[in-house]
């Protein structure tokens, strides 16, 4: 996994609550058996004027000029600013895969759905929670100042605007922070405890043989 330490990038504002993972990556793209290549279909139904299907050339499709990510000023954005309950619905990890493949390294929102939140950490995508009023200020600043960038420092757990006028702290669980800072592979970490798992399993299956 790609480590996350410090990241500075352009901010794009997605101003709606309860954005679900069906909207982030529609179902027809879930037929892929790969982990990559979902970026061009991120927010497909909002981003394009026509209907997308796997295998068609997305570069030739008509873009929806009203969709925020299609505005020239947000081209190259790597930090997504969102509203409450972002990533609700389906557990599809294709959602964080699509966001990361598009180029996002972090999301800032007042809250996330649990499964999506968890999936982000597995893909080097940092889901930052800030308060509603802090997120509202960031929306205002992003809309007011073209080229508005933020610097996210995971070690220090801070989000700071370029001129330093806005600075917020955020919480992150220590274990997740460590994994993300070092780009650690969860499975490798867990397998260090293989003996404990084996012992636990043997006892459990002996006591409740119907679980085998």
């Amino acid at each position, binding site marked *: 996994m790609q480590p996350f330490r410090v990241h500075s990038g352009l901010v794009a504002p997605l101003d709606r609550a309860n954005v679900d993972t*069906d909207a982030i990556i529609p179902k027809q793209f879930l037929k892929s058996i790969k982990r990559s290549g979902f970026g061009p279909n991120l927010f497909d139904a909002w981003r394009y004027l026509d209907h997308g299907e796997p295998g068609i050339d997305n570069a030739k499709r008509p873009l929806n000029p009203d969709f925020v990510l299609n505005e020239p000023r947000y081209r190259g954005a790597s930090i997504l600013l969102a509203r409450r*309950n972002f990533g*609700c619905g389906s557990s599809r990890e294709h959602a*964080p895969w699509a966001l990361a493949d598009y180029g996002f390294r972090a999301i800032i929102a007042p809250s996330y759905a649990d499964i999506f939140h968890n999936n982000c950490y597995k893909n080097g995508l940092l889901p930052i929670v800030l308060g509603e009023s802090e997120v509202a200020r960031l929306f205002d600043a992003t809309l007011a100042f073209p080229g508005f960038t933020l610097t996210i420092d995971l070690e220090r757990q801070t989000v700071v605007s370029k001129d330093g006028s806005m600075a917020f702290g955020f919480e992150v669980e220590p274990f997740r922070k460590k994994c993300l800072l070092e780009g650690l592979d969860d499975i490798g970490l867990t397998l260090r405890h293989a003996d404990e*798992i084996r012992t636990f*399993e043997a006892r459990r299956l002996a006591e409740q043989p*119907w*679980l085998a």
Partner: protein
Amino acid sequence: MRRTLYDKLFDSHVVRTEADGTALLYVDRHLVHEVTSPQAFEGLKLAGRRPWRAGSIVATADHNTPTQDWAHGIRDPISRTQVETLDANIRQYGAKAYFPFLDKRQGIVHVIGPETGATLPGMTVVCGDSHTSTHGAFGALAWGIGTSEVEHVLATQCLLAKRAKTMLVRVEGRLGPGVTAKDLVLAVIGRIGTAGGTGHAIEFGGAAIRALSMEGRMTVCNMAIEAGARAGLVAPDDTTFDYVRGRPFAPVGAQWDRAIALWRTLASDEGATYDATHVFDAAEIMPQVTWGTSPEMVVPVDGRVPDPDRERDATRRDGIAKALEYMGLVPNTRITDIAIDKVFIGSCTNSRIEDLRAAAAVARGRRVASNVKLAMVVPGSGSVKAQAEVEGLDLVFLAAGFEWREPGCSMCLAMNDDRLEPGERCASTSNRNFEGRQGAGGRTHLVSPAMAAAAAIAGRFVDVRRLS
């Protein structure tokens, strides 16, 4: 210390705990389907690993499979590749059970887990699918995971998890005639919201929950995720044990007796405390119909579509306006004035035998309205389909003008050919009314099976209790 059911289930699966409280939880049952597993198996292979305990795996193909013309196989080559990839992975690594496409017991993963006894009280059950919460109806700790975690379970038989907060949703009293588990859970979501349960495991209790069948409890726990909770729970009782007894993977003989003794301890201790509690009176719950693009956008059938101008919160007001625009609805429209184009009875929420009986009871001797282009019934599994046919329900549906299909996820998420066309409006017994969920531009209204059947007959939403 008095513990909740959630605490007991969590504690009994902890292998070890990190300093910050992150636990390594042992997974008893791993349900696998074709959409969220290929990348996990590939990752496993690339790392030179094998499944830790293939005997924990129960797999099926359900999301991509067609619901008609099975003789023609899966026509979409991309879907077919995905299903064949699952076939190959299970062939290579093995499983406790595999119900592939065309198997007569194939079906929706959350229907076949319980009906085969692969889901048992006291288990941890995971699957790369958010509706894994369904299995909590058995007093199992069950939750949906992403593909990285599918790989983690394959490789280690464990998951990293932080203890969730606990929420009790207590539903007292008795549901009225014609009011079902679906209406109950929609009413709960309508009150607590789609993020109301975020960070929590919801335990459903109270007389109205105890009175539900296992099918009803599964419907309720299935939609816990639509309230934001990864897990829903109902303490197991005689209703649970009567359902489980005799199923293929259920314990027998002396083991059954030991299992029951253990399972009876799976209830929250008297006086255990929850981080949040919500109390409902079942008698006040009416048949529900969603009007918007989130399951929390729901009203009783005698209600009206809301008016965004009356909402004070700006984000909410904007959400209502966007939803009404997408749904093609005018503020203050009566729900019963909304005409429909299609009807979908199926999904992991409502495709079990009891659901089909409820819909058939409404359809019997009636005809689907002429303005309804398609009314389809998709059983949750081959076993449900066979049982329904033994009872003659297929004939009731066919006589009324419904289509009787093969099992699968079908138009709940429209990965196969079953879908809404842009602008089409559907009465659906599924779980999500998100934009485009049932097909790009499609408009979904979530209802119970009886209400969906009633809508098919009337051509618009009606109160099933008043259907003449």
